[in-house]
């Protein structure tokens, strides 16, 4: 309000920025890179271990086959189930607290899905698309919890972002693929197969050729072959989708995890916070992309073709 106050606020900001900058410098000096540059270790207690990354998820319990990503996905499932179970225990017509939040999520997802898909198909797609979204985003966010990365057993990290295990995106991609094909058949019946095996034009052309109309038939034959080839491409694209689904999520999440690890290694303080924020955002974006693309492909599958 007054200039004096304003100056005070500005001063606070400057002090804060200087402090943050000092923390960055101190932590950089303490880190392995800074120590290496200086040639000695003035702040050795600040040193963060060099990141060890392996693409294969670790197995913290030597006598049990489960991986740390499996544990994380169970945690995500428990978190989601717990939220929804508690939030829907005493449903009230006038919502409060958790029920309100859950209703907000469900309603937003329902609107998002039913907008392109329509009421009827939207009701089919809703559970799968929403669950994919929630699972991916919960996996991503759970692994940003403080202490998540530091827990370890037998020298192996106990927990690891489930999205960085190729099995998780692959399982989601397969689920997405299967449901899309199922909805395609459910909506269009056997005619859905025509998307992949389009013999109609070729058959007609052959009929024309056999009945002696060579001139019309020749063009028709070409069209028929093209339609057949387009169907084959469609099969291929449906299969490749699974791959792209899998590696998009896996790649983004793994890159994010490695980025945060490297930032923690180089400058342990302050700066990684920014990357944590970015990772939280990317987790949400990847979840929306996975759910949204499933929705888009599902809409394309149920749409009648002319």
């Amino acid at each position, binding site marked *: 309000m007054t200039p004096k106050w304003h100056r005070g606020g500005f001063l606070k900001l400057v002090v804060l920025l200087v402090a943050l900058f000092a923390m960055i410098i101190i932590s950089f000096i303490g880190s392995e890179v800074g120590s290496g540059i200086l040639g000695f270790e003035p702040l050795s207690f600040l040193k963060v271990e060099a990141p060890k990354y392996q693409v294969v998820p670790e197995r913290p319990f030597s006598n049990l086959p489960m991986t740390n990503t*499996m544990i994380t996905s169970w945690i995500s499932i428990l978190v989601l*189930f717990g939220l929804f179970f508690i939030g829907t225990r005493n449903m009230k017509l006038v919502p409060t607290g958790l029920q309100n939040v859950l209703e907000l999520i469900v309603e937003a997802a329902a609107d998002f899905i039913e907008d392109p898909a329509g009421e009827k198909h939207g009701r089919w797609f*809703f559970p*799968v698309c*929403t669950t994919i979204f929630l699972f991916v985003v919960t996996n991503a966010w759970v692994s940003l919890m403080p202490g998540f990365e530091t827990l370890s057993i037998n020298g192996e990290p106990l927990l690891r972002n489930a999205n960085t295990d*190729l*099995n*998780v995106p692959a399982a989601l991609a397969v*689920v997405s693929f299967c449901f899309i094909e199922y909805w395609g058949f459910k909506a269009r019946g056997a005619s859905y197969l025509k998307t992949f095996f389009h013999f109609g034009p070729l058959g007609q052309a052959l009929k024309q050729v056999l009945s002696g109309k060579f001139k019309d038939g020749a063009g028709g034959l070409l069209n028929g072959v093209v339609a057949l080839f387009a169907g084959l491409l469609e099969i291929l694209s449906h299969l490749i989708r699974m791959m792209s689904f899998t590696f998009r999520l896996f790649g983004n999440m793994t890159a994010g995890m490695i980025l945060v690890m490297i930032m923690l290694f180089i400058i342990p303080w302050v700066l990684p916070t920014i990357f944590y924020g970015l990772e939280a955002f990317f987790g949400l974006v990847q979840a929306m992309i996975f759910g949204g693309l499933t929705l888009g492909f599902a809409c394309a599958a149920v749409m009648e073709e002319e």
Partner: protein
Amino acid sequence: MEGFLGLTLPSFIGQLINFLILLGLLTFFGYKPIRRMLDERSNRIRQSMEQAEATKQEYEQARVEVGEQISKARDEGQAIIGQAAQGGERIKEEARKEARKEAQAIVDRARAELERERERLVDELRKEFVDTAILAAEKVISETLDRERHRRIIEKTLEETGAFRRKVS
């Protein structure tokens, strides 16, 4: 043991089952009750809005009806007042007529009374005059005549002269 980039069948199947379990759990414990609640709420809201609309319409109708009734009542009241005024006028007129009639009757009675009184006075006067005349005549002619005869003579004379006629116009 480990496949391409850590892709292994047991892990893959495990994660697949994880996801399907989550899908089932969320569908039955999350989406279904919440969507049911949302539908119920939107139904409730639609119902109450329809109800509000109906109430509004009813109110509007009632208002119109009441207005009509009020205006009808006002007309009726106006008519009654008119009738009453008319009745009052008539009563006043009747009263006036009655009063006039009565006054006329009083005047008539008074006139008749007067007439009678005058006749009586005239009779009286005549009697007196006759007696006086007789007395005078007696004195004048100093002769006592048969009183009755005199009377008759005088009466006759009076008739003839027309004086003190019985009927005075």
